[in-house]
């Protein structure tokens, strides 16, 4: 029997709603993950502090809204240059010195950075949950049988726009080509006269700008608190490993897979258990396809 015929209209409505939720969520996850995968692909550093920059983005949105009543989707425009500079400063102060160091040094440098940023936020703004409630959060849109709010849609559109812009930048600009060349072969790029230090600086700044903007975009949708970044960054690791560390297209596809797992898991088992599904997915991927679903086989054993 045709399975579609067995599905009543109610089931189709649920499926449509779940599909829409997956797409909206996946678009935002993609923006978080491309920054992480970009930094990894080019600098060969896993940024364990990535989530903390997202958290800072959320606070930027919160304070702009609370103090000056600026809409988060206007703040996005400001956040990109702001976090670009934050990324530059972080690179110069923290990352530059460890770029040639061992993995352990790099891991614990970014872990240390994450601890510092979380607690600067805790001391400066206390641990309370804070919320941004712009008008569009309560504007409900109905399309067919599905409903969602305007904030989600706008966040999705801006996130996709920024992600596409970043991919286009990497593909078609000179700077993007130089960055990809460095990712392919650091030594050869240096021999071709590429200043790798500048490439890393730019890479880190772009990656942080992307995740900072993502933080501003998700601010109306989630509670804001000093360790808010953790939930997103763990998810971003799953996405990035799924797509293959360093692979931007893989990261985008991975985002939608993770979003689908999360949406389906929450629907079937309740939201309390949703995280456990992508961690199980993560562990499965690490075991069976550690270089990612689309990655080069064997990358994980190089310890890159």
């Amino acid at each position, binding site marked *: 029997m045709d399975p579609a015929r067995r599905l009543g209209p109610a089931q189709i409505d649920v499926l449509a709603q779940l599909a829409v939720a997956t797409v909206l969520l996946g678009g935002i996850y993609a923006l978080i993950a491309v920054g992480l995968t970009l930094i990894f692909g080019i600098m060969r550093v896993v940024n364990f502090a990535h989530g903390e920059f997202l958290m800072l983005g959320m606070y930027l949105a919160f304070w702009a809204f609370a103090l000056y009543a600026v809409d988060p989707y206007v703040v996005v425009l400001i956040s990109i240059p702001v976090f670009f500079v934050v990324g530059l400063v972080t690179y110069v102060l923290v990352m530059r010195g460890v770029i040639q160091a061992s993995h352990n040094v*790099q891991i614990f440098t970014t872990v240390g950075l994450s601890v510092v940023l979380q607690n600067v936020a805790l001391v400066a703004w206390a641990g309370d949950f804070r919320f941004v409630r712009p008008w569009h959060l309560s504007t409900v849109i109905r399309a067919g049988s599905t409903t969602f709010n305007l904030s989600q849609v706008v966040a999705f559109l801006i996130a996709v726009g920024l992600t596409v812009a970043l991919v286009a930048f990497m593909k078609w600009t000179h700077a993007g080509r130089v960055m990809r060349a460095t990712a392919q072969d650091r030594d050869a790029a240096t021999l071709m006269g590429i200043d790798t230090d500048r490439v890393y600086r730019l890479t880190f700044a772009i990656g942080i700008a992307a995740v900072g903007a993502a933080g501003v975009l998700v601010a109306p949708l989630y509670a804001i608190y000093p360790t808010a970044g953790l939930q997103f960054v763990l998810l971003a690791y799953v996405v990035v490993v799924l797509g293959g560390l360093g692979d931007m297209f893989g990261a985008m596809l991975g985002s939608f897979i993770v979003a689908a797992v999360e949406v389906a898991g929450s629907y079937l088992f309740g939201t309390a258990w949703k995280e456990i599904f992508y961690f199980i997915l993560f562990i499965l991927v690490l075991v069976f396809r550690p270089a990612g679903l689309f990655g080069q086989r064997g990358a994980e054993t190089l310890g890159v």
Partner: protein
Amino acid sequence: MIARLRSRPGAVALFGLAALTPLFVRDAYFLDSLVLILLWGALSAAWNVAGGYAGQVSIGHASFFGLGAYAAALMVTRFGRGPWLGMLVGVVLSLGAGFIIGFLSNRLRGPYFALSTIAFSQVLLIGVSRWRGFTAGGEGIPVPFRPGFTTLGLGHIAWVYMALAAALLCYAVEVYLERSRLGYRLAGVREDEDAAEALGIPTRRLKVLAIALSAALTSICGSLWAQYVGFVDPTYVFSVDLSVKFALNTIIGGMGTALGPYLGSILITSLETYLRATFSGVKTGFAGIYLIIYGTVLILVVRFVPDGLAGFASRLRARRAHA
């Protein structure tokens, strides 16, 4: 024996001093600090077994700590048995978990391994938080205090010796790894896995073994900690911060050195105690300020003294011998 002890004057001084302290000092606050220094030192040494000696840097060791803590606490509260049995169950569970993590992430190196250990501790955190019927979920479990050795309801002085025993156990394992064939082979895995493999060392099996051994030691200390502190909650015992703490003590003291984790623990635990006393009145809490310093120290140490205090000391000694 005496000659061996003489070759490790730092350890003899440190553990000897810890053993003698309760004879002269009765101040509860001071003894409490001593217990914590020894316990965190032992936990860091347990981390060092995998991270320092075998090069398997984990940021998920809180998994095993939490398993030990929960096994001991639940054995008392749910089954009405002694915490020692819980400790044993914790060791079995952690050995199993260590084998699983080690086996699953066998091919993974560097950042991939660290990521998979974080994922594992998060799975446990979520599982324990949500399984309310058995673990009491996010509320945590208060562990009742029943005086006596079998129930681990000990006074301050007895706790010093208990923590010292744990510290000596972990230290002994570290020393064994410095002197045995197993230790040399693990060092081979750490320094160059491909070369070790080429020399016929079963690198995968050894990595799993090191992780499981480290997990079992961590679990023992976790059980002790649960009984000492008297309260277990999932967001603390499975936190990434806790995993980082084990690593931080070891890195500051010196990875792959037997005494390093204890030196790191002395420094970091005292700093924590001092800051707790200094900032206890501040509204935003001392935790934030303490952790800012802690994170900064971590960044600076891995950058400028990557071989830690122990490495720094031996370099100084070498320079003096040279001059």
